[in-house]
């Protein structure tokens, strides 16, 4: 309870500071709208359904792209950690492409797929796959060798070794890799939505883009807040329970 109160106080102070900066009239309200006007925009957009609609479109794209990214990245990462040949080929490719900012995929995606949903997905997947590959590979390589030795003496080999020892042993790394993959997917999607102006679905990135076009600063800041909020919620709802489970099992994360 005390933690909730302290956190609320912290954010109340932030909003108050914002309010007073606006009141001081340093910048034009066109550039820095007041918290009230942003709140009014959010309320209005929530009432007429644009916000919910855009959020659904965006989260759907994110989930599809992210899941495909993991479905490709996880096995690839296992392969690069298991086979020297894969490490020297796919591993190097993943390392290289991971350093490429995902927004750099957009021109290529636009030319290949046009202003379509596929272009959007392509960018998200490319943003996700490589970091998941690297994280999985690192995870498997960091397993204490004693686990593999113990498992071998008990007769575990082949598929059994991979599913019952290596995968669970690298779980803490896999989860942080998936978390990182999610962060990359989210960034790629926002970049894609701002640049790929398709008509099949109006996402949060588009709202942001049109906010800029229309010079509607309350919309820009309001949508940014929603994007931050989705990021926070995903962390708290999706990843925090998994991490708590891992901490309980491994006895880590204690203060």
């Amino acid at each position: 309870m005390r933690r909730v109160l302290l956190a609320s106080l912290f954010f109340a102070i932030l909003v108050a500071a914002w309010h007073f900066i606006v009141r001081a009239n340093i910048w034009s309200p066109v550039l820095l709208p007041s918290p009230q006007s942003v709140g009014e925009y959010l309320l209005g957009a929530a009432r007429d359904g644009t916000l919910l609609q855009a959020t659904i479109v965006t989260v759907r794209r994110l989930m599809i792209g992210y899941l495909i990214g993991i479905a490709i990245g996880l096995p690839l990462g296992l392969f690069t950690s298991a086979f020297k040949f894969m490490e020297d080929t796919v591993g190097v490719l993943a390392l290289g492409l991971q350093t490429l900012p995902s927004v750099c995929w957009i021109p290529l995606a636009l030319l290949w797929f046009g202003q379509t949903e596929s272009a959007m997905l392509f960018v998200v997947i490319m943003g996700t796959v490589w970091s998941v590959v690297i994280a999985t590979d690192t995870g498997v390589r960091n397993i204490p060798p004693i686990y593999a030795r113990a498992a071998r003496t008990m007769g575990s080999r082949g598929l059994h070794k991979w599913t019952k020892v290596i995968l669970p042993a690298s779980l803490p790394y896999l989860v942080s890799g998936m978390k990182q993959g999610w962060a990359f997917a989210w960034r790629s999607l926002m970049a894609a939505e701002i640049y790929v102006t398709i008509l099949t679905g109006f996402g949060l990135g588009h709202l942001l883009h049109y906010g800029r076009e229309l010079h509607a600063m309350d919309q820009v800041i309001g949508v940014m807040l929603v994007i931050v909020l989705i990021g926070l919620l995903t962390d708290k709802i999706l990843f925090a329970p998994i991490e708590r489970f891992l901490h309980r099992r491994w006895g880590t994360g204690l203060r």
Partner: protein
Amino acid sequence: MSLQEELIGPPPAKLIVDNVSKWFRTTRQTVHALDKVSLNIGEGEFVCLVGPSGCGKSTLLDIISGLEVPDEGRVMADNEPVLNPGRHRLVMFQESALFPWLDVTGNVMFGLKLKPGLRNKERLEVAKFFLQLVGLEKFSAAHVHELSGGMKQRVALARALAPNPRVLLMDEPFAALDALTREQLYSDIQRIWQKRRKTIVFVTHNVREAVCLADRVILFSRNPGRIREQFDIPLPRPRDINSIELAEHAGQITRALKGHADGEVAE
């Protein structure tokens, strides 16, 4: 196989180490870890390998388990050459090597699940039996990190015993424990070994520990690793590590150990 047979287990195995040599080559140097080591271990015998660190005793244990392959010579378990690790020769390591993603029962079940011909209900029974044997039945649902060092090694012992191996290989399993916990485990090991005869090869650098547990103590010297001397320990069981007779035997072996060490070139 019935559950009853499963709990009694197969007869212990005979081990023959035949002229085994092993080198470890790195880019910087070559270490001659074992030099023509030959050793016969009888069925149900408790043998301790003792020697200074780097004398190859752990390497020999790895070779007997099948985790390492010798460069020369071979190891026979019941007249079959050892080529791979197998569940008839289970290993207990210095660190417990328990799996943190499984609870205590899950860890004890790990080797059991790889054993064909058992129903899962029977496996659970077996796991329960061995947790009782090491005195940890109350902790069957505990997570690994919640256990003390001594309890972890007890679980590791139960895990190694549960699939009923014919040979138990122990690589300094008590080295990281405090003296009191160790003494408790010495009496536990003796009690369990008398109940369920296994051929045990136990590596340690603690001479008293070796005398307390073994039928026979094998003394190694290093550079290269060789068997120097063997000592039969005819003391009655159960043995108390603090008894005077035991100390006398240990003193004799320690003197032999020191004698060899003095003869070596200082590192």
